[in-house]
């Protein structure tokens, strides 16, 4: 056979493959360390993870970490990506070799996927990972026998304990990858004639390539249109049922794997130390299981709500200081203004999210790595199903009560595309921490500080706002389940892996990588919008701006108090004359039915940057100075009187209307940016923004009209 004498191609890029939960990421992290980056595959939302392995001081090999899948079959985006890469449909072309990571304890399932890859003719090396676990299970693999049966080199490792990493590295350095002999005869599944026809149509050398092409016949954009049409015709003529050939292939492949493993595996009857079984007695218990899960959620919530605020305050302080330093260093002028007031706060507005993202992903990595995450799914699947969500949506949604940004990023773990999309779309309804300052001020205005039985009414109102957010999220999920048309393979077949000690290095790398991706990808959109908003709020028609400044009388006695009062008044007048002010006045007719005047209109526009900006804008508009305590702002707002009606502006109806508006409206450019990044396009962020805004408008309208 020719594959033995063939000279090996110089290794440029290697694909790392394996089924889920085999420790593939740990191997990847060991090989590449911080030499990783995340890119995009065209047309899908799957992240492309690339790392570089240093062979020598001047040679690096690119390692592509493919998503973990159980098979190559057109079902999820993950599987499409695996298919595309291993068939050379990606722009980098076919990988030179495949490093296949298998779970030694569950070799059968791992080999099911790996022998599919072997049949594609790419040189493969097999890593039998989790050797330590296998030993504990009394499983012993004769690697030489396995090598003889499969025809590819086999190394053993226990990547978590750093065992066997050298052997993996040597395999790559010395290019020991081998093309395997055909494992499964495709002719047993589909007619030889059809195989021949497909091979000559697409220029393939191997039978299995033809079989895979047939399985993916209905997937768009893989083949040139003319060839795709011919292939479809061929499939139709031969009466091929794709599901059926996959079932046949599964049967044949598993039978063959079983017969091989019978020769290679010996099982000792060890007294299994079933830690996993013991832990599950508690973790899956009807009381303790939920208690533990609730505790974990509470811990995560605490972390991103309150622990994260410490580094966030520092980041905030840093950027404020940086802005004023720049102002001192650079000559006064428009460019300095742009840098000091537009760009630097904009960058700060991106960096401020890093602590929350890093913390949430640290927790998620711990839960995922330890094997707990799929237990959480097991416990909550039934609860979430009526809302069109599955158990994996719980953690992102709860995290949304701190901040929607990390929450939406955390939906990556939801395998089902439809469930993931719905979770992304409804997560911003959860009451995030940016709504809190608005809620506190508005509730203080419209809800009396009295007791009802043992409850403080204001506290009760705040709790209702949180419940309202949850209700809106779940209601919208049900609604979207009806309207979103995505092929939904609504099943739950999830492995509950053995519990393992999480590896801190992997957790740390996840935290780093997620923060980096956020800053680089969503960050640019956030920065761009925040600069635009800054320009709108700081500039206006030149004559109007001058008039605004001149309209305030400079105090005759320039005491500190008088001067600060003067400055506040100027800031107020200027904001009124700015483009944002003009916009606010323009939209007044639209928001009037909700009980808002143009000042609130301006605040609605500026707070599109982030909800909490509402408070500082209102403070500026009423010349309070945005450093004041919320009590001061409240007092001032209470006194505000509508000039035409003589009634207070912030009456009960307007207050509740605003509360409802902020509970439902999108009002957060960072969320839009991150949804754009996670759905890889503008369609869904737009749909979401329109939906939320319409819901907010209508609800606020109803509330105002009912109460006024």
């Amino acid at each position: 056979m020719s594959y033995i004498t063939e000279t090996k191609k110089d290794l440029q890029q290697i694909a790392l493959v394996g089924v889920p939960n085999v420790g593939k990421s740990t191997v990847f992290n060991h090989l590449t360390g911080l030499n990783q980056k995340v890119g995009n595959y065209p047309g899908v939302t799957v992240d492309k993870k690339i790392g570089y392995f240093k062979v020598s001081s001047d040679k690096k090999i690119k390692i592509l970490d493919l998503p973990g899948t159980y098979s190559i079959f057109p079902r999820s985006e993950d599987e499409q990506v695996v298919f595309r890469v291993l068939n050379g449909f990606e722009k980098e072309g076919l990988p030179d070799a495949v490093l296949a990571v298998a779970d030694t304890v569950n070799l059968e399932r791992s080999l099911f996927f790996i022998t599919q890859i072997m049949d594609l003719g790419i040189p493969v090396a097999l890593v039998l990972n989790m050797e330590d676990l296998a030993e504990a299970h009394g499983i012993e693999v004769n690697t030489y026998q396995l090598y003889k049966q499969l025809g590819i080199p086999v190394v053993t490792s226990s990547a978590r304990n750093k065992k066997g990493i050298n052997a993996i590295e040597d395999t790559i350095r010395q290019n020991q990858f081998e093309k395997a002999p055909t494992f499964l005869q495709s002719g047993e599944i589909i007619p030889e004639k059809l195989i021949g026809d497909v091979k000559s149509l697409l220029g393939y050398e191997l039978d299995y390539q033809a079989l895979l092409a047939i399985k993916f016949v209905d997937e768009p954009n893989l083949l040139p249109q003319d060839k795709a049409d011919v292939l479809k015709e061929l499939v139709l003529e031969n009466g091929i049922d794709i599901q059926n050939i996959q079932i046949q292939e599964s049967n044949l492949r598993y039978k063959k794997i079983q017969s091989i493993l019978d020769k290679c595996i010996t099982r000792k009857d060890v007294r299994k130390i079933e830690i996993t079984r013991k832990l599950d007695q508690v973790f899956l218990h009807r009381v303790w299981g939920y208690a533990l899960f609730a505790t974990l959620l509470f811990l995560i919530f605490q972390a991103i709500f309150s622990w994260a605020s410490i580094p966030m305050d520092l980041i905030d302080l840093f950027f404020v200081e940086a802005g004023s330093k720049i102002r001192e260093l650079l000559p006064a002028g428009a460019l300095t203004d742009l840098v000091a007031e537009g760009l630097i706060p904009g960058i700060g507005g991106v960096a401020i999210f890093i602590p929350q993202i890093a913390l949430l992903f640290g927790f998620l990595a711990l839960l995922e790595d330890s094997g707990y995450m799929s237990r959480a799914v097991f416990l909550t699947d039934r609860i979430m199903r009526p809302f069109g969500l599955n158990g994996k949506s719980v953690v992102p949604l709860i995290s949304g009560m701190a901040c929607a940004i990390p929450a939406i990023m955390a939906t990556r773990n939801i395998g089902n595309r439809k469930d993931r999309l719905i979770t992304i779309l409804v997560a911003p309804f959860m009451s995030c921490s940016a709504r809190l300052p608005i809620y506190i001020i508005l509730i203080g205005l419209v809800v009396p500080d009295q007791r009802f039985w043992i409850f403080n009414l204001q506290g009760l109102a705040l709790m209702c706002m949180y419940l309202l957010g949850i209700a809106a999220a779940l209601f919208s999920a049900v609604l979207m389940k009806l309207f979103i048309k995505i092929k939904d393979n609504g099943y739950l077949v999830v492995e509950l892996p053995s519990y393992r000690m999480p590896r801190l290095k992997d957790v740390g790398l996840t935290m780093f990588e997620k923060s980096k991706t956020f800053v680089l990808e969503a960050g640019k959109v956030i920065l761009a919008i925040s600069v635009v908003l800054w320009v709108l709020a700081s500039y206006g028609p030149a004559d109007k701006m001058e008039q605004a400044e001149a309209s305030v009388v400079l105090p005759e006695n320039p005491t500190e108090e008088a001067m600060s009062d003067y400055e506040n008044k100027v800031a107020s007048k200027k904001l009124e004359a700015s483009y944002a002010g003009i916009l606010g006045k323009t939209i007044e007719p639209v928001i009037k039915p909700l009980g808002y005047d143009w000042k609130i209109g301006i605040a609605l526009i500026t707070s599109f940057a982030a909800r909490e900006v509402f408070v500082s804008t209102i403070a500026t508009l009423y010349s309070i100075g945005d450093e004041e305590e919320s009590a001061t702002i409240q007092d001032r707002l209470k006194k505000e009187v509508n000039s035409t009606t003589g009634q207070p502006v912030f009456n009960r109806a307007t207050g509740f209307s605003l509360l409802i508006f902020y509970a439902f409206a999108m009002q957060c450019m960072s969320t839009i940016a991150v949804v754009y990044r996670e759905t890889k396009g503008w369609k869904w962020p737009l749909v979401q923004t329109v939906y939320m805004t319409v819901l907010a408008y209508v609800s606020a309208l109803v509330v105002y009209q009912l109460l006024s």
Partner: protein
Amino acid sequence: MSNSRFTADMATPHQKMEIQDIQNSDIAVKLLEMGFMPGKTLTLLYIAPLGDPLAFQLGDSMIALRKKEAQMVGVSHMKLVVQ
């Protein structure tokens, strides 16, 4: 039940079963890929507190299925295995 077909969802915890067949359906492909092959031994380990999903021991791994999916897995006449 008048029907003589037994399916995996009918088991009680710790009951051992032998897989007979997988009913032809959309998820049959997925179940087969995960190793639900005729002839394999299946043990029901846990039922989620709300009665669904179910966790099974299959070979050396534990896999959770919804009831609906477990109904696709035909099993041999069940015997209660006293442990």
